[in-house]
């Protein structure tokens, strides 16, 4: 993917449009990133950004409830939406002749969603979201891990303290007026990046987007954005132990690292890959293969990077203990490996880590939908859709000394948040 083939335009109403060619023909990928996520929510109204993602499929002035899904599915398209702390993302990949319909559907719900949301719709989707919460968080072993990490990693009142899905009580408290207000505050063309990856000429795409989105007005009032600033490191270890019906002890260790886009974040990406990405990583080699202490997840999932543009990111190590291995033993073994990284890593390890990162990066850009998502993300966070295409060059400049230095600094005990899950003992 050459950066010279990416074009960008800004409509008069502030909508940022990015275009790029698709590697495969006859498809168009449409991807919208709205600059609203759970960090924009206020106390007592958590879960709104995500609830809103659901409501966006429930009909608008010219599209009936379920009509968006029906129209795209009829084209054989892929579609869905996701919500994170920082943004809400809507996307569809359709046969190229369906591009206009996809754009029209997106424009209609951006411009007129408030005419489609009723109390019945809200009640129904609130139930759906509560069941999503039960399915993903409450009825799963370790399901609340990420929610607990966020709650401990960011202090009460910080916009990243609460989970994206929100609490049951806040979901119950949501009124129709709250919901309509939220749309008014955050859903405007001036708060969105729209990317189209297709075989069409950039000017052709721009004309189509102008036709469908050009009549939408920018927001007249901008909401207050909660302050996300936080110290770059913790000032002491925090621990939480959860006893629940889980099958094995689970260890989660989270460390504050730099915000996405910073040099420190890039180094933390490489550090994370050296430690836990792939079967050549230290944690996999030492704790799964050599010592047999941790469950084998194929080299995936042992490192989670929660990358945030506006506040400190979290580098999380996660492993589950094997039969007969205690949580204490596993945690100590992980900590020994983290300490060893501070003593030094080899050039070969860093090379492998860079190769793995680059592989995953290229794979994520290989499909039209994946490329569109990366471009939207990059434009939204860095005001430059091409920024993420250069990631491999940034990793290339990172050496073993950088990695070891960050390990010594960021993986220090005082910057640690330890979350442990211990199986509940069941009476015989």
């Amino acid at each position, binding site marked *: 993917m050459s950066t010279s083939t990416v074009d960008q335009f800004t409509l008069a109403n502030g909508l940022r449009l990015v275009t790029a060619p698709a590697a495969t023909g006859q498809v168009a990928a449409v991807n919208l990133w709205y600059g609203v996520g759970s960090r924009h929510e206020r106390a007592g109204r958590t879960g709104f950004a995500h609830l809103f993602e659901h409501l966006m499929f429930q009909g608008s002035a010219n599209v009936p409830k379920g009509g968006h899904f029906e129209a795209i599915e009829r084209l054989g398209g892929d579609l869905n939406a996701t919500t994170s702390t920082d943004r809400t993302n809507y996307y569809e990949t359709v046969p190229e002749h369906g591009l206009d319909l996809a754009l029209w559907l997106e424009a*209609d719900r951006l411009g007129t969603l408030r005419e489609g949301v009723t109390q019945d719709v809200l009640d129904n989707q609130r139930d759906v979201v509560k069941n999503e919460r039960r399915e993903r968080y409450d009825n799963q072993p370790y399901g609340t891990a990420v929610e607990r990490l966020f709650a401990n990693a960011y202090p009460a009142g910080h916009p990243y303290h609460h989970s994206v899905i929100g609490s049951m009580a806040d979901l119950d408290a949501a009124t129709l007026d709250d919901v309509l207000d939220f749309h008014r505050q955050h859903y405007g063309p001036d708060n969105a990046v729209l990317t189209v990856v297709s075989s069409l000429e950039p000017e052709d795409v721009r004309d189509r987007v102008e036709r469908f989105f050009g009549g939408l007005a920018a927001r007249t009032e901008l909401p207050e954005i909660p302050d996300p600033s936080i110290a770059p490191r913790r000032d002491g270890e925090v621990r939480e132990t959860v006893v629940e019906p889980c099958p094995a002890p689970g260890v989660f260790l989270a460390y504050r690292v730099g915000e996405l886009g910073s040099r420190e974040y890039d180094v933390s990406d490489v550090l994370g890959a050296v430690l836990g990405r792939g079967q*050549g990583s230290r944690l996999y080699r030492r704790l799964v293969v050599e010592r047999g202490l941790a469950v084998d997840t194929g080299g995936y999932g042992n490192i989670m990077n929660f990358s945030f543009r506006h506040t400190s990111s979290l580098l999380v190590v996660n492993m589950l203990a094997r039969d007969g291995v205690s949580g204490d033993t596993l945690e100590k073994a992980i900590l020994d490996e983290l300490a060893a990284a501070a003593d030094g890593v080899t050039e070969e390890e860093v090379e492998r880590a860079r190769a793995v990162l680059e592989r995953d990066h290229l794979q994520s850009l290989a499909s039209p939908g994946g490329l569109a998502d990366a471009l939207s993300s990059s434009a939204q966070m860095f005001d430059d859709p091409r920024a993420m295409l250069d990631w491999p060059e940034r990793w290339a400049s990172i050496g073993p000394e950088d990695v070891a230095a960050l390990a010594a600094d960021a993986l220090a005990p005082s910057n640690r948040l330890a979350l442990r899950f211990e199986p509940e003992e069941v009476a015989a």
Partner: protein
Amino acid sequence: MTRPVMASRPVLGPPEPYTFPAVRRSSVGAGDVIAVDLPGQAFASVRLVHPAGAFTESEDQYGVAMLTGDALEDGQEGNGSLAPALERHGAEWESWVGWDSFVTGVDVPVNRIVDATRLLADALRSPAFRSDDIVRRRDQIREAFVLECSVPSSLAARAVGSQLFAGRYAVPANGGPKRLDAVDPEMVVDFHRRQLANVAGTLIVVGDLGKVDVEGLARSVFGDTVRAQPPSPAPVRGAEGAQPRIVVLDRPGSVQSALVLAHRAPSRAEADLPAAYGVGDVIGGMFGSRLNLLLREEKGYTYGAGARFDLRRNGGQFTASCQVETRHTADAVASSVAEIVRLREGGVTDDELATVRESRTVGLPVNYSKVWSVANVLIDIEVQGLPDDHIDRLRAGFDALTAEKMLDGAREYLRPDELVAVVVGDAEQVAGPLAEIGLGPVSQVDPDALWS
């Protein structure tokens, strides 16, 4: 509020005709090669397919194929040596064992395809297979299985086979914890010697192949191997027990129940695919399917409901799945069965027929916009013995679907009288209401008893 000026809904023109990419076949030594050139796709998928799926395993060795697949990752030097070697090439090992096939491969940047394919061939043909490594892999699979079963939806999905089938399909493909324990390193070595070491298989290569010597790749993979022999599996047998019936796996305190409604289905070759898949789409294969609209969008019981046909070389199964709030468990089961019956009795609506026909035809460029999705079709063609223009023929079949064919398909392929409903949830709360819906007897089963 000032209403924005919206453009009117666009009327779409006809879609551009789609043809599945040209398939290039050749033979190198004892092996077959299937290649698809996709210019511009710099990441290639390489797959090697052997007809050594789990269904062909003998009764005393259930799980040996999957354990062998895992043990290959220890490479020629043992001790997990393969993946790190591939990772240094920016390549990723891909391997899975299905009921009908044993697949190994790599995803790799095209400019590294020669080295990565060489590593693939070495790992497959002459692995170290150290006993310690195999035992470690076996124990890890067994423990991972237990972990997976702590997730209610996974437990429900794993339990279905034992309720529908006797014989191989009754036991999970990885053998389950008890069967797998009986598989020793010698069995793995023997399975590998008979099925993989010197058996050519079929090489599949997809990506931008403009500068790739595909035949050269094939020579590095096939060497002096011999041609694969078609498997001769045992016949498919059904499980005993009343039909329909409900089986509850107790998970005290669950706030949701994981449901799978399932029955046996014909084999891939026996089924009228457009009709079967079309019926699957309407009942549970799309967001706008009947089960999802009813259980999620109308009743708000669940985050999502789906259904599908899993049609194998030998027999198959239909499953409808969802997770519902505990207090709605019985109604969710009853409503799902009623919806299946309604489709059998009343057939599809004009809108549903149009949606199936259009989505399965005009959507093909979307389905195959990823390299790995094209590779998966080629694997399917090889494993199921399908013609190279399978996708184009299937499209013609969907184009020709009618409401009558869909009704026939619903009556042929949906069998509510043969359903088994597997419910993983709080038995104390759900068993009573489930008994009242009239879907046959309700029994409680100990999950640990399922895997023998």
